[in-house]
């Protein structure tokens, strides 16, 4: 055996065969690696071609963005008639909130971002200071949106609508349901039989019935359970139902997180002499919450999407506005346009939420990989 012949360096590595690297290599490996794979690629390309062709044409090229009625739209071009949306964009965003008062919604909306920033991004500079703002934001938002104090005129709840209503119900539900969900999850894991049974019953009931029946209860029956003469607004009743409903789901998610914590953690906590509340505060919840982030965010997204159900009990969320627009004889039959417009709004906001959860998960991930 002649080792000398292969002295290191004198025979440099050959480049990889052309066709396995670079652009062509990538195409070959990822799109045409085998016969079935190539067929799949061709199929996908055809599908994409028709999709893009149809969508771009209908959405943009042949679409009409401003017209007075559907008939006029159709006269101009045969694509989508976005005029129904552009003419009523104010209603889609604010519902029937008085036009002169809409600045209040705008301010609240931007303040919401400032209030949520320190909660969502733990590394923010001046976080302590901003957290104070987050604390008072709910009061501020209530005062601004609802009015009735400081010279702001009072706005009736039944004028709320559009995306604003979605955001109000969604955010309030999300913020309120998290603590209740945590309490329920802890209750379900409790040693106390009575507490545990109560929590299990509540959770299973809420998870067992469709949300729509709960909303019917909120709209038609909840007043029976209150002392005679009490009458609180349908919006509040609906928010209560949403909160309870998603709290039950969050409880189940967090319970999964709690159960995933190794037994050794509890034993270590006990060995350190921590009591139940200390263990929960410093050992159980931080770990359980971290594990359950994806599930919790999914529940939030679910709640946010489910806010559309309020249209069934007559609130004017974006879908309610959409139906109202279609009932207008001028725009009769343009259901696809308005529904796609509303769908895009939900798509963007839900995608943002799920992307945030991915980011947070990555940030909190302390696995040694």
């Amino acid at each position, binding site marked *: 055996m002649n080792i000398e012949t292969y002295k290191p360096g004198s025979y440099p590595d050959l480049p990889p065969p052309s066709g396995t690297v670079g652009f062509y290599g990538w195409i070959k490996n990822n799109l045409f690696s085998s016969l079935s794979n190539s067929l799949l690629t061709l199929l996908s390309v055809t599908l994409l071609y028709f999709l893009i062709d149809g969508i771009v044409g209908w959405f943009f090229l042949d679409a009409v963005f401003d017209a007075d009625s559907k008939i006029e739209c159709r006269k101009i071009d045969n694509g989508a008639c976005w005029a129904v949306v552009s003419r009523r964009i104010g209603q889609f965003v604010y519902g029937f909130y008085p036009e002169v008062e809409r600045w209040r919604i705008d301010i609240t909306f931007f303040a919401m971002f400032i209030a949520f920033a320190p909660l969502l991004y733990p590394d923010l500079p001046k976080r302590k200071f901003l957290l104070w703002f987050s604390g008072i934001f709910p009061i501020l938002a209530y005062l601004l949106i609802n009015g009735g104090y400081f010279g702001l005129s009072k706005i009736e709840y039944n004028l709320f609508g559009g995306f604003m209503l979605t955001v109000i119900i969604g955010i309030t539900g999300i913020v309120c349901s998290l603590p209740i969900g945590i309490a329920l999850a802890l209750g379900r894991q409790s040693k106390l039989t*009575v507490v545990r049974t109560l929590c299990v019953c509540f959770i299973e009931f809420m998870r067992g019935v469709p949300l729509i*029946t709960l909303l019917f209860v909120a709209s038609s029956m909840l007043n029976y359970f209150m002392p005679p003469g009490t009458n609180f607004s349908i919006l509040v009743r609906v928010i209560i139902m949403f909160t309870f409903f998603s709290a039950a789901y969050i409880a189940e998610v967090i319970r999964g997180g709690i159960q995933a914590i190794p037994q050794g953690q509890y034993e270590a906590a006990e060995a350190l002499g921590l009591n139940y509340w200390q263990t929960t505060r410093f050992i159980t919840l931080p770990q359980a919450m971290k594990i359950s982030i994806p599930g919790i965010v999914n529940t939030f997204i679910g709640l946010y999407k489910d806010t559309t159900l309020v249209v*069934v009990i007559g609130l004017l969320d974006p879908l309610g506005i959409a139906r109202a627009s279609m009932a207008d004889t001028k725009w009769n039959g343009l259901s696809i346009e308005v529904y796609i417009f509303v769908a895009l709004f939900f798509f963007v906001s839900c*995608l943002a939420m799920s992307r945030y959860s991915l980011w947070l998960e990555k940030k909190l991930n302390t696995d040694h990989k």
Partner: protein
Amino acid sequence: MSFLNNIWRNEKSREIIIQIVVLICIGWFLSWLIMNVNANFKALGKDISFEFLFIPAGYDINQYLIDYNNRDSHLRAGIVGLLNTGLVAFFGIILATFLGVTIGIIRLSKNWLASKIAYWYVEFTRNVPILLHILLWHGIIINVLPHPKKAINIADVSFLSNRGFYIPKPLTENGIELVYLFFVIGIIFSILFLKYSKKKQDLIGVQYPVFWINLSVIICLPLIAFFVSGMPISLEIPVLKGFNFRGGMYMSPELAALTFALGIYTAAFIAEIVRAGILAVDKGQREAAESIGLRPSKVMNLVVLPQARRVIIPPLTSQYLNLTKNSSLAIAIGYMDLVATLGGISLNQTGREMETMVIVMLIYLCVSLSISALMNWYNNRVKLVGR
């Protein structure tokens, strides 16, 4: 004082005290609710009674599985609604499973383009509320499909129009029993053959093409019986009469929209579940199976899928349950399911909110609780026994 202090410091007695306090609070709260209901009902002159179930409902339902007309009772209307819920859940589950599994597998495929398309399908579908899916599909069927007179004609037997879908209806005639009988025989044979071939494989290592033999037996036996007994099935073909079709099997636009929407929406979730389940199987399992020389199909069927199934089935069932619960949104497009009949029109006609809602909720609760009980049983059965 120290005695009380001792009781509070003792863990056992403290637990009992807390529980008693909780019980008292809950009891007080419940009795407060009941008192309120009583007071409210007295003020309105209402009572609680379920007699309304037996008076004629007086409204029509356009899609029904059992005979129904508007002189039937509210109870029967409710049952028709319940069956309609079952019907749409059944179709929806089939569509969702088929689509979901396909998309989930495509997302894992090595083909970059196909997996990206599957990914965006999932993102688009599941980030849009289910109610919007339903309304959108309903809008498409109502506004885009042609009138019955210009219906899309599929081979002169099926018709798609904005009044619904009409497909031929199989009518059974005398002699059909033979076909059923042979179908049952085929199934019994295939179960026995499965056991036999398994035994044979354990004994001497022979493998029969069990799947193909069983499939052909189950299909061929009834088919032979069908021809032998003189073709006892005839098709009733829908025909255009006046403004709409008559005869055949009818799928209302609402049912079709609901099925598509529920199926497509749930498929996105199922795709994620299937993908996660397959990814959850340890890579070493697949590599080990390949290294002992199993063919790719065997690797999938004998090694990966049985292990993925354990991960997939529990969330899959809960998706089926979600689909069934989501079908209650049918009320938004006027499909007469349980919520729309009993909890919708019956409620409005009789004014008995309490009773109808209790019945509707109890039915849903029973279904979901029994399915979760079944799931717990399954989970315990397939659980890996830890050491």
